């Protein structure tokens, strides 16, 4: 495994994840979070003060994603997109749908979050697939 490339791909993937998250969750569907200002979701300063945990967590998660990709899921943007789509389905099924059952949120918001997971992780997969290259010593 090319650890330097895994790290580089994870950094780029995380940057894309944050930009996407800001555009989609912060702007596009932001109004759908508004019915839950204090009960379910944190608001204002409380959310901001917890953000560093989220940023660090997402970076480590994408590092894990890049490691799984590097361990053998093919090479290039297409293979990255396929692995990313699989992770997106995993996230939508195991967490977005389950959270709809356990959290006080609407079906509309749960659907938007689920769809967003599919797109977000597919994009992360494309970036990781584009940037990861195996070590020259391990290529045949």
């Amino acid at each position, binding site marked *: 495994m090319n650890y330097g490339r895994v790290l580089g791909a994870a950094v780029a993937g995380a940057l894309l994840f944050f930009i996407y998250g800001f555009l989609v969750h912060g702007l596009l569907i932001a109004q759908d979070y508004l019915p839950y200002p204090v009960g379910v979701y944190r608001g204002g300063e409380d959310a901001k003060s917890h953000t560093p945990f989220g940023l660090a967590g997402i970076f480590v*998660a994408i590092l894990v994603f890049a490691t799984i990709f590097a361990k053998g899921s093919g090479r290039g943007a297409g293979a990255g997109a396929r692995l990313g789509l699989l992770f997106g389905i995993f996230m939508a*099924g195991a967490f977005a749908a389950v959270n709809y059952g356990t959290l006080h949120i609407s079906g509309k918001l749960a659907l938007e979050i689920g769809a967003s997971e599919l797109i977000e992780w597919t994009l992360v997969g494309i970036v990781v697939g584009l940037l990861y290259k195996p070590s020259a010593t391990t290529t045949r």
Partner: protein
Amino acid sequence: MNYGRILLAGVVGTFVYFASGFLVFGLLPLAKFYAPYPGVYRAKEAVLSYFPLGMVSTLVAIIVLAAIYAKGYEGGAGLAEGARFGVLVGFFVVCAVVGDEYVTLNIGRDLALAMAGGRLVEWTIVGMSIGLVYKPKKAPAE
């Protein structure tokens, strides 16, 4: 890839997920950490009415997980390979899901830590069960 085994590993992994989830979150003291947040989580009775949706979506998610495992399967003992994969998935879930929920949901650090520990154990066990069940297709005899 051996699609039949992926499906079987997904089904077995789902049973293991719910069994380990019941043990970790239902019976162990972890369940008490959810109690202070009735404004965040639905009541037990309401959750039960959504349970079929959660079962189906989790089954799909774990079949997908088995497919990811099969794509990266490197040979070797299934249990050890599955455990390594499960630990990676566990870290992924802790960082991408629990971390995100701690930032966005109105929950305390105690619950977030309990969820992180519980989910790491849970997904590692699911990975082990996938590793035990999945077998690659045998090469045709020449």
